[in-house]
């Protein structure tokens, strides 16, 4: 069972306090978007083996959403960060680079 640190309230807690919210940094496509764009937005998830970025909510806690960078193989958590961003912050990316040189995830590396 994972432990995660909520960047919003600072609590390090076990997984049962949190609720997973799937892949992070998905851009919303609304009316006016093409079928392909909309399909991609709704259904195309990367589900990688290795470095992954996810959304989590501190459901039994402060109630806030946040992002986590995590390895889906070893379950190592590289870091958690604000939900109010469209891409992983540089310090998180640097941390991952130090541990998983050459990593990439979607358009990020």
């Amino acid at each position: 069972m994972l432990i995660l640190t909520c960047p919003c309230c600072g609590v390090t807690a076990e997984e049962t306090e949190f609720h997973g919210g799937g892949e992070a940094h998905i851009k919303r496509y609304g009316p006016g978007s093409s079928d392909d764009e909309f399909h991609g937005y709704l259904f195309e998830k990367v589900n990688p083996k290795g470095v992954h970025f996810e959304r989590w909510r501190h459901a039994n806690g402060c109630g806030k959403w946040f992002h986590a960078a995590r390895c889906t193989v070893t379950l190592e958590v590289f870091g958690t960060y604000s939900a109010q961003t469209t891409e992983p912050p540089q310090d998180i990316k640097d941390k991952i680079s130090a541990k998983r040189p050459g990593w990439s995830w979607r358009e990020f590396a």
Partner: protein
Amino acid sequence: MSTRLANGGRLLNKAQPLEFTFNGKRLKGVEGDTLASALLANDQMLVGRSFKYHRPRGIVSSGSEEPNALVGLGEDARFEPNQRVTTTELFDGLTCASQNHWPSLEFDVGAINAKLSRFLPAGFYYKTFMFPRSFWKHVYEPIIRQSAGLGRAPRDRDQDSYEHFYAFFDVVVIGGGVAGLQAAKAAGEAGAKVLLMEQTPHWGGRAPVDGGTVDGQPVDKFVDEIVSKLETMENVTLRRRMMGAGVYDHGYVLGYERVKDHRPDSIGPRHRLWRIRAGQVVTATGAIERPICFSGNDVPGVMLASAVRDYAVDYGVSVGDRTVVVTNNDDAYRTAITLKNLGLEIPAIIDARAGGGGALAGEAIELGIRVENGKGIARVKGNKRVEAVEICVQAGEGAALETIKCDAVAMSGGWSPVVHLWSHCGGKLLWDDEKAMFRPDVDNAPTGAGGEGFVRCAGTAEGHLDLDDVLKSADAAGKAAAGATGHTPKRSKTPVGDNPREAGIEPVWLMPQGAGVKLRMKAWLDYQNDVKVSDVQLAAREGFESVEHAKRYTTLGMATDQGKLSNINGLAILSDALGQPIPQTGTTTFRPPYTPISLASIAGEARDETFQPLRKTPMHGWHAENGAYWEPVGAWRRPYCFPKPGESIEDAVQREVKATRDSLGLLDASTLGKIIVKGPDAGRFLDMLYTNMMSTLKPGRCRYGLMCNENGFLMDDGVVARLDEETFLCHTTTGGAESIHAHMEEWLQTEWWDWKVYTANVTEQFAQVAVVGPKARKVLEKLTDDDISAEALTFMGWTDVTFGAIRARVFRISFSGELSYEIAVPASQGRAFWDMVLQAGAEFGVTTYGTEALHIMRAEKGFIMIGDETDGTVIPQDLGLDWAISKKKTDFLGKRAQERRHMSDPTRWKLVGLETLDGATLPDGAYATAEGNNANGQRNVQGRVTSTYHSPTLGRGIAMGLVLNGPDRMGEVLEFPKVDGTVMRAKIVEPVFYDKDGEKQNV
């Protein structure tokens, strides 16, 4: 025979005799006994029958690895099957019974299977019961179920209590032998917060039995001193009778504490499951001795050499008068020496190694014990008890050289470190050829949240068999674990252990090496599941080459002991059969728990009245007092109806509908979700959330709204009231309160975080009462001086009203088609308000109604219900709700999805009303059939029933359904087959059955 010795028994308090019962026989033991030692002291070697062949089986071990000696323990509300006698502490009045035999332990009919064992090889069931297919369900399965199974399930409700406990430590040390004690001390002295747990009631593990010295003192003394020292350390928690059940991701450890199994009549929980978060885990779990595979190695009286020694030293019990020791390593010599020194006979030590043993062998020879090197046991003679062994040359095929009379055999095939906890969470193993064991690959430890290893092994669990190595390894592990959690280990001296030097082990996977098929068919690997050497070899021949496949095909290691004794021998046999080295075969996966734990401990507090949270409205007590027939709605309990004494549920529902439509009904609507949405961008936000326009709603007014998810499917509906320019109150369905609030927060926090909107879920702040029916206004006017006339409070309006001392918000909305008010009052005054309306309504014959009457009334009006008309695949357009979908808005959640091709497909099933031709009520969920069959040979369908009721208002069955091209087919008759084969016919009609123009609600 096995008996209690006059001397010895270091764990016993002989001054305290205890009585217990086995299979109805009253027997005597003493304080400190395990059930196993007490049974042996009473010469009860035969304890059970095996699973498949019902062979007589005796106690094999002295610990948690025991495969054979399982009993049904206790009676009635305290009965539990499959309890290992070796880990059951004796208490006065203990009652137990052997399992898996009929009619008795001594004479068992099922033992005929053993005679047929030639015809019951591995995979027998799979091969035999395949055909004819129809026989499986009615013939084979019932017969197999009758004869299979171990023990019987308890019948009575468990009378004990259980609990969880969340605890956090820097270092958790599992295993309280000398290694665990030393590791805990090293970590504790560094300042780490340490938990040390030991599954038995005793500290010290095997070392006090095995002998040797630590810093020149006997091991016993060392153990006493280190325990005393640890007890004084405030940062160290010591816990006995607590097993490390599993090690999981990120340092999560389950500790299974058996709080009062040994004193069942005391108060408190029986088991406590510790849910521990550890910075570092040190497994000091020791090792388990392996049996040797020779013919007849399951005859009662054949035991692990270490167990024979334990019973003698710890419990003062001799397993036999004449014990033959058979071994491939030096450790078993300790058993021979111990027994000899106690005055018992050792007819011979059979050492499979041609070169014999080391210093301990010398000591045995000096004591006058006959040692036969390079020999093995060809077969054991005896049925329910060992009578003799035939010895042979280990390198040969089993020709008997000599028959030696004996009543016990102490065997040792070497030691396997307990690597389970290391492996649970991904720790890798190495095969050590020299020691013939799998041991932890310390460079490949399980990794935690930070990516670093968090499990270390100490002592024998790491593969060390020499006492001094054990202590050094434990000290290092404790210090390293403390260091890894930010503490600085002290430079203390490691205790020095001293033990005779041992000669190396020579692996013996089969005895004798060239044993023929007859011997191999009686050479057991897995005692509990009756798997023999020949079965594993057969599996290999039949192509089950993966160890995981061979395991499942033969059931090796699949019994309650999970192969603690059998796995290594089994995979060595498999490797040999496949002609490959052992590491290439590998091990099966080690899964938690280490030994079985009670299901009730896993449930913890979640049982009886705290099984689940049951949500209660402020009026719940009234409902209960007035005979509510409950319906679970999410975690809530809502009254389905209020049957009067002698009244049926159906009749009550019909009465409630009629009374409400005729005069006055009262519904507890408190469970409806209520969410405040406030801010300069609140209108804009709600326009995105609802399909219709909310920003244009005027303060003081209400509007019904639909909510879709991004897939375009309906997820919730409800009435939105605008409280002021910046504030809205959104009502959700009962089930939607939490999820819709979370949905709002998700969009605000993760997509539109720059929008100025705050939300608050105030669902439970208010008790909400629906006052419904032609007399609704009359009754309320009796209770207030405020103006709630038709002109002052129009349909879809709301206003603040004071009812006596109660301040309320009154919404004039209707889900029934009647004149109707929903009144929100503070929850703490909900019951008072409810009582007030009941009293005032008495003159109108006020009737409380439940969810079913609510459903019927809304269906009569053609109002949809989320979860009935919708199922996660239905869009508002399917339900004829196009009027609630804004054409003006450029965007709302679900808008883009509803533009997808499939969503605008004209052949999507659409909502209609359904009227049976004979007035009967359609079955819920029934399908309307169409011509022909589909690709699977099933009848084509063209619609289905989504809601169906008997309407007391119309005196007939009414239904709503989704039908292909439904709205264009008014008047057509559809066929709905029922499960009994008959067909109901129903006409397609408009979905509004009652008061189409809304005259009743608009008065």
